[in-house]
């Protein structure tokens, strides 16, 4: 158990940026995003003994994190506004139409939470549909339909198997 805990801690530390980003996409608020991650951490540490195969750590933890994010939205049903976000201009050096991509970023953030989760995990975190289906506890065809719905809303057409 102690060993498992250490593996988990290392995994969390290495991926903390990704977890924070995902939590932030639900809360749109710095403190609340940290709360969501913390809540997810405490729950998962508590339940770690139920995780039989450490290979599933990623999807298992993401599932808890996504649930916490959605829980946050349910608890705070009022309108969540997209706050100004900071980003390093240098990282966008290759980007020749920043305005359009910021719009796309905001558009993704404005999607309905369940659809947004799928879009973020698939395109921003490069996850496979099967992984997403495990994380969101839905079957692959539901993930696919949410993905298409999201792309349709974003007015993007791509070939996705």
């Amino acid at each position, binding site marked *: 158990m102690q060993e498992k*805990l250490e593996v988990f*801690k290392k995994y*969390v*530390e290495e991926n*903390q*940026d990704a*977890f*924070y*980003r995902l939590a*932030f*996409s639900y809360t749109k608020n*710095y403190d609340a995003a*940290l709360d969501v*991650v*913390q809540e997810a*951490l*405490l*729950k998962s*540490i*508590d339940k*770690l003994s139920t995780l039989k195969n450490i290979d599933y750590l990623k999807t298992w933890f993401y599932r808890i994190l996504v*649930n916490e994010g959605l*829980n946050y939205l*349910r*608890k705070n*049903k009022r309108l969540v506004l997209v706050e100004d*976000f*900071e*980003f*390093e201009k240098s*990282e*966008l050096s290759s*980007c020749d*139409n*920043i305005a*359009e*991509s*910021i*719009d*796309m*970023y905001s*558009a*993704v953030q404005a999607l309905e939470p369940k659809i947004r989760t799928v879009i*973020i995990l698939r*395109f*921003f975190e490069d996850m496979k549909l099967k992984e997403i289906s495990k994380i969101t*506890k*839905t079957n692959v065809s*539901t993930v696919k*339909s949410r993905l298409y719905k999201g792309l349709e809303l*974003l007015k*993007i057409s*791509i070939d996705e198997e």
Partner: protein
Amino acid sequence: MKELEEAKKIYKSVKSPPKMQKIIDSSFKNAKFKKWNLKKITLSTAASICILFVALLNCNSAFAKSVSTIPVISDLANVFTFKQYSEEDSTKHMRVEQPKVENIGNAELEKQINKEINQKVEAATKEAQKEAEENKKAYIQTGGNPNDYVPMAIDVNYEIKSKNEKVLSFVLNTTWTQANAFTEQTFYNIDLKTGKEITLSDKLGKDYKKVADESVKKQIEERKAQDKDQIFFEDDAGFQGITENQKFYINNNGNVVIVFAKYEIAPGCMGMQEFEIK
């Protein structure tokens, strides 16, 4: 697709704040304490406080003077999270944080309160389960798409209203949320000196009903005068005086706060109403 790639760059440029590492460290640190049960921690903390006191008393006369005002023993009276779990499926999302009291100075009352809390939590979760299933069934039967169904959220938690050497006052909240939210509250006010539940007459005297009624009425009028958006039901539907089992808690000033549930004396949009009786 190119825009999505660029949006990805923006997304990835968000970095976790420095505070994150602290949160990770503290979360994992707590994990190691899980092996201990809560009682042990309370006792060992009390023991270490005693040792610290003795050490400080010997070397600091100013501290020795102030120490008499710090209640050591009754500080052990506590309400803590006894059970915490969550359950999720397609019909509901349930989160339960069940409290338990200990060392309130009356074993009988302690047992009774803990039993009652347990029964309330069990009943609420069972009822919610049943209702959630029925709601989903009705939703699908009336032509709703099962994938679009928003599960019912059930939240059971507690909140300490005040805690000192004399009083322990806390509330058990059960909230059901689906389109609309409703919270059922159960208040516990314990006199730690006598080990009994505090009644309104203990706090407000023999004429407690008159005192409370007048104060609440006055405060309703004050609120309406101050803000025209404050709406209360009028006449028969409005405030008719406190009831026999009036809900209240003791706040940090040691004052009684009378509580009304949503819809009880005002429209739902006004939410729950609280009146401090000074």
